[in-house]
């Protein structure tokens, strides 16, 4: 019959408290937006604020979501709803090297499946996971607009074209 509503604390590191300089940067950015009391309007400023927050902190854990929600006078649930909708946003820590294997139609028919499997095998990661040393994150995405180079792999901002499974170790080794 008991209800433990309030004993729950976020288990994760509180990035907002740990990194005052980053907090300040995000705060200044949000202050530069035209935040008023109109929730509808503030909601329109949410995505860009989350972009900035993810740029600054690398990911969007609960403490960062709460910070953004508070500054934009929105409910945490609205912020979380948006984060969960867009695959770009993540509430889990990501690796230094973000590997994205395109599994869009063109890449897929050109063998992206085998490439992705090789990354999974080589890094011992499932799609969406990050290595324990926070070095690599593995993800798939749908189309980067470079179908002539299919299959395409992106590592952070770098694009690799016509990738085969054999090239996977070299791509990873390039990430010094």
């Amino acid at each position: 019959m008991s209800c433990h509503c309030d004993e729950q604390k976020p288990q994760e590191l509180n990035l907002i408290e740990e990194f005052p300089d980053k907090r300040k940067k995000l705060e200044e950015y949000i202050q530069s937006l035209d935040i008023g009391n109109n929730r509808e309007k503030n909601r329109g400023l949410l995505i860009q604020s989350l972009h900035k927050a993810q740029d600054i902190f690398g990911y969007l854990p609960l403490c960062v979501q709460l910070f953004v929600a508070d500054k934009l006078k929105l409910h945490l649930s609205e912020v979380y709803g948006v984060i969960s909708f867009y695959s770009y946003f993540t509430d889990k820590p990501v690796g230094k090297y973000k590997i994205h294997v395109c599994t869009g139609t063109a890449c897929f028919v050109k063998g992206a499946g085998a490439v992705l499997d090789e990354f999974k095998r080589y890094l011992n990661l499932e799609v969406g996971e990050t290595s324990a040393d926070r070095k690599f994150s593995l993800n798939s995405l749908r189309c980067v607009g470079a179908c002539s180079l299919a299959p395409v792999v992106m590592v952070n901002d770098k694009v690799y074209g016509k990738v085969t499974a054999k090239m996977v170790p070299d791509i990873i080794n390039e990430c010094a």
Partner: protein
Amino acid sequence: MINLSINNLPVRVKKGSTILQAADKIGIRIPTLCHLELDCFTIENRMGSCRICVVEVEGRNNLAPACCTPVNEGMVVKTSTLRAINARRTMLDLILSDHPKDCLTCEKNGNCELQRLASEMDLHHLLYEGRQSKYDIDLACNAIVRDLDKCIMCRRCENACNNVQTVGILSGVGRGFEAVVGTPGLRPLSETKCVFCGQCVAACPVGALTEQNYKYNVWRALNNEKKHVVVQTAPAVRVAIGEEFGMAPGEIATGKLVAGLKLLGFDKVFDTDFAADLTIMEETTEFIDRLKKNENLPILTSCCPGWVKFLEHQFPELIYMPSSAKSPQQMFGAVAKSYYAEKMGLKPEDIVVVSVMPCLAKKYEASRSEFTRDGVPDVDIVISTRELADMFKEAGIHINKLEEQQFDSPLGESTGAGVIFGASGGVLEAALRTAADWLSGEDLKEFDFEEVRGLSGIRDTTVKVAGTDVKVAIASGLGNARKLLDRIKSGKAQYHAIEIMACPGGCLNGGGQPYIHGDTKILEKRKEAIYKADSGLSLRKSHQNPDVIKLYDEYLDKPGSKKAHELLHTHYTPRKNW
């Protein structure tokens, strides 16, 4: 005004009306599922997400969702063409392809809008088979159960939680087939700032949101010969439970309800209204004290556990404002396990206090650690009006056919002031009746404070209490409470006393009441019944309740005494705002 035709019938409606509203005006019912309109509170869910209400509009290529398509001059609408009917059936078929088919054992069986649609739309076999959503059932709190496998993404709960109540814990999470209505991080409700008002449950058309059901716990208690089982029924229960037994909305079922409870086998059938009178004694004493000292004003009512929890999470800086008086439910429990126990020569742990409440937050309230003495909870089991109706049905008790009976003594006597607790404005009016008498030292003949009554979200007025102007406000629905509190915080408004109820309209529209499926006329009728019950009683002021007077004489000394504080008062705790 706009002129259009629907199924070749002319209709004239206000600009901005929807096709659905226009059709309703001429008696054409278009099926809906995600749409919910509670006109008396201007609450509307117009997502247009389920597409069950599609109709044909001449000159438009695709079908139009009637619930969110505004009418145009000269519009020609057909609601029952083969194309519209087929599209609706396909939509329903697709919704059902990802919905469990366990209607027979579903909590919502017989009350499900999806089930009713499938019947009305003559859908007898399904064409589509596909993946089924699979989520863990959230059973972690003791008020609300969430079974998301049954969620049809109508977003009515989200509207109730975020827009109406502004509690703000629900939103659409994920996308595509994985999309579901959930809390931040998909945490269980017990780990959020949910206040358990149950307005999401009242809004849910299917079995995705239901109450935690404690019926079996009551059956077990009733069949335990070692236990002395007493029951209290809240004011709003008596004006709603009859609806489940063929009585017209607004018929007062008090005597039949008592008769039914006695048949179920309770040792004593008592009335929360008695404790409501007791609440008024304590709360009004506190109010007059603050008023005379002109400090800690306004006083806020504290009977509603959903509202109290909302304040603790979202307005912790105002935590000194609510009266420290416990709610009637908890006062009843405390008195039953002390005064009554001693009178009967029973040990508190041998008494089982069952509450019948129009409310789901009361289940949570009873479990708060403040409301336990020496490990014995003041209130043991809380069931909703709906659960009690189910128990009557299971026991074959058709209360409408029973001879009326009276509540038992000594915790069954009540006044009209106790009854009106069930409607928005009632607690304040009850307090004003007593305050006016106490301050003037007279038994005033004029004590109807009509201006504080009503279903509207926020009301404020100045009332004369024994020659003094007292500024009062009433808010029902937590979104309205927020507006009022923001005004107080910013100094834009000043009041002496404020009543707040979490549910729009007050307890008569509580999250545990029989489902109204959008028919707000039922709420009007329940409200009328509450005031009719009040005016039909010879005693209508709490301080004139003879058993309450006796309780003070024999046990508590006087309102605000040390003993009264020990038993009848509580404190509040700031909580996290997420």
